[in-house]
């Protein structure tokens, strides 16, 4: 049971959250064309290491928070609110 640091609620067990993958992809403007939407929905960097991702605190504050988590070690380095930015880089 991982601990996800919710910026609003503090560290919470992972079963209070739903996962939604890569948070670095941005929904394109509606007129950006098929390729842009294809990349948004399908193309993933899928890094082995630090990964910025969406977690929805559905059993808590119901916010879609951004979490920077290491996919190799499962260490969580940072989190931010839905419209906030994560820190620039994590060593």
């Amino acid at each position: 049971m991982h601990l996800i640091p919710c910026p609003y609620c503090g560290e919470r067990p992972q079963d209070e959250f739903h996962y939604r993958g890569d948070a670095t992809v941005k929904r394109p403007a509606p007129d950006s064309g098929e390729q842009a939407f294809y990349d948004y929905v399908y193309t993933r960097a899928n890094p082995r290491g630090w990964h910025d991702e969406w977690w929805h605190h559905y059993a808590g504050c119901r916010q879609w928070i951004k979490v920077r988590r290491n996919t190799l070690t499962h260490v969580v380095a940072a989190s931010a609110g839905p419209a906030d930015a994560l820190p620039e880089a994590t060593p």
Partner: protein
Amino acid sequence: MTSKRLPSGGSVDRAQTIRFSFDGRTFTGHPGDTLASALLANGVRLVGRSFKYHRPRGIMTAGSEEPNALVELRDGARREPNSKATEIELHDGLVSASQNRWPSLAFDLMAVNGLAGSVFSAGFYYKTFMWPKSFWEKLYEPLIRRAAGLGRAASQPDPDHYEAMHAHCDVLVVGSGAAGLTAARAAGEAGARVILCERDFLLGGGLLLSPADESWRKEMLASLEKLPNVEILTRTNVFGYYDHNLLGAVERVADHKVQPDPHEVRQRYRTFRAKQVVLATGASERLIALPGNDRPGTMMAGAALTYLRRFGVAPGRNAVVFTNNDSAYETALALAEARTGKVTLVDVRAQSSLADALTARGINVRLGCEVASFDGKTAMIRRRGGAGGEKIVADLLSLSGGWNPNVQLASQSGAKPRWDATLASHVSGDPVQAERSAGAANGSFGIGAAAQEGAKAGRDAAAAAGFEKASEFALPQPGKAEQPIAPFWEVKAPGKSFVDLQHDVTAADIRLAHREGFSHVEHAKRYTTHGMATDQGKLGSLVGSAILAEARGETVDAVGVPTHRPYTMPVAFGALAGHASGAHFQPVRRTALHDWHLRNGAAMQPTGAWMRPFFYPKPGETGWDPIFREARAVRSSVGICDVSTLGKIDVQGPDAATFLDRLYINTFSTLAVGKCRYGVMLREDGIVFDDGTTSRLAEDHFLVTTTTGNAAPVLEHMEFHAQTVWPELDVQFCSVTDQWAQIAVAGPKSRETLATAVEGLDLSNEAFPFMGVGEGKIAGVPVRLFRISFSGELAYEIAVTSGQAETVWEAILAAGKPFGIVPYGLEAMSLMRVEKGHAAGPELNGQTTAADLGMGRMMKKSGDVIGRVLAGRPGLADPGRPRLVGIRPVDTSKRLRGGAHIVREPSSGTSMGWVSSVTQSIEHNCWIGLALVENGEVLKSQRLFAVSPLHDESVEVTITSPHHVDPENARVRA
């Protein structure tokens, strides 16, 4: 059989005698015994048979590393196969039986396997049983399956209960030996919240074998009990170390009883979220491979000491102790003290400063020697590496190949074990998580050293968790420094030298694996099955690696050992499930009208998390009778249905309409206040996500409804887009599913029924037309009415606050009485929706587009809509895709099947689509269905076949509009 119980000593309660049985014979023992110690005390030497060769086996250890003494514990529904006699706390009435033998333990016919041992070498089964091909499933495999396995599972459900419990602490201490006790006390006295876990039913670990330290142990326990911030858990094995410093454990709450007390759980699954962890898990002794090291009478030296000191039982009469290190000298001394017979100590080391002390006690000490073989009666002793030797009468061969610190938990936490050449073993590596090892687990042997290291670890852990208060308490004196161990793994002599007793893996098997290229330690493990038995290779894993290392010409360090994975000890399925199984497996949701349904005889069934009425059978009704009766009532007069499970989302704010316009393919900003509209939403990939009716309650206030199953996903979808994609929109929304019960009143008489019941709202068609939304009162209760229909009849849905649902429901029933109103369930609702041709779950299956479902034209011409762009991909825009149609059998006596495929000819293997929903129609008096058929629209009124090879059926069908009833929608507008 004479008693082997010594006249005095040990921590068993000799004042009380308890009875137990093994293989049908009744024995006695004492509280404080394990099944193993009690069997030994009763002189039972043969306790089990091995996996492959069915060789006779005796008790080898005194703990969880036991490979041989596996029994079926208890009987009937409580039978537990493969229970380690060394781990079973003796209790009055305990029933146990040996396993994996036929016809009896003493005479096992399968032992014939052992005679052909060299044919059954490692991996032999990969090389044969291939001819003829068909014989594998029919002959070879059934034989192998029957011969394999160990004990038998119970055949009935487990009558006992389990639960989970979640704890948090500043410092978790695992193990209660000298290191664990001092760690817990130091951390506890610093003020930290401490949990101390001990696998055993007694606290003390190795201290229990040291009479000299007994008073110190008692004093430590007394001081720990005084600390309110220290919780002590016995019979609790920590089985795994997971990410983010979470550890899992099982507490054996009632395993030391015949059965749990009423309401007591059998076992408790525990999780510990610890800021800091101290691993004081001790060490495990490893065996020495030599011919006959599996014969009954072979026992680890530490185990022999345990039986002598802790249980007051002599593990044998004449003993040979074979060692490469100092620890077994204590066993030799204890054996000599027991005065049961001659004791010989064989040490591979050429010199030992401890030899004289043993000789003085009458022990025959043989330095620079090895045991070349053991047959249960005699041991052959020879110069190390020599030939021939001397036979010594011995019914006990006590082995010590050195000690492996128990690094399993540290290793699971991510700390890679490190090779320590001095100890000839792995010790825990640099911590990755917030943990530290102490005592024997850290390679610091001896009570004094362990106590000191434990105290430091406890203090450091508390400090790291923010508790700096210092405390002082007395520690035992450090013992004399030990002489170095002489790494020694195997006596090379003819015969079977076992490295894994349970799986019958020999040193020769390891070498064969290497010859065949399985030289990586993981390959060798898998090829030979070494270390994969229920004892998890604790005795011989490293020995196997050493033999492999020799074969490879490399160091043990270079070869390594297989990765440590959960579980440190096997864990009961029931324990891990906790309370959450059976009726408690997942939450059950009940609508506000749940009890009304129960009181009125509804047949309730689960749909997702909800319990819903499927129908309300009357006496004498069978099969489809109640469904037809209920549906007919709706089609001919009026019915009432609980539709509270629909998802309901309250959406407000200046940008609410804009937000909904982007969520749905159709437009909501143009919807008038007091009206509702059907809407469809897509996933971003262009596939239909959900549908439902949305009402405009005010300029900036909407009520969205979703399908029952998608209520939660739709809310999350809305939250995602409102919070992350369009944070600039001023919109607020929340679920109101539970606030409102919703009641459908459907049928041509629904208006008349409601006209009687509703106050304050003109229900005439002009004042309250189709898709109207209004407010009124029923039985004095404020309600909201929607003129919408799922059945295809004139219909209304009424929303009422949950607390008043029954009042309103009853009032409507009363008002409808003159029209013969009936409650109808999910089945009748489903029948009517298929007749009407509404898409539902089977059509909204995550594979269909709006166009597939005949709703392509709902997509608005412009504006940002989720899913619009990718819905335009060629594969999704292809007009040849399967489209929603209706089907009816040409021969109306034929039944249709959901899941049948549509083909042009019965013999065709090419599917044109499939049947998504079927029902018996009360309008058409035959089966009808909905189907998704390629080019469905152009095939209308053509005849095709619905085939179900699974049922060996083929039915000629006519393709129709999906709307089997009232395609013009006249009824709903009436």
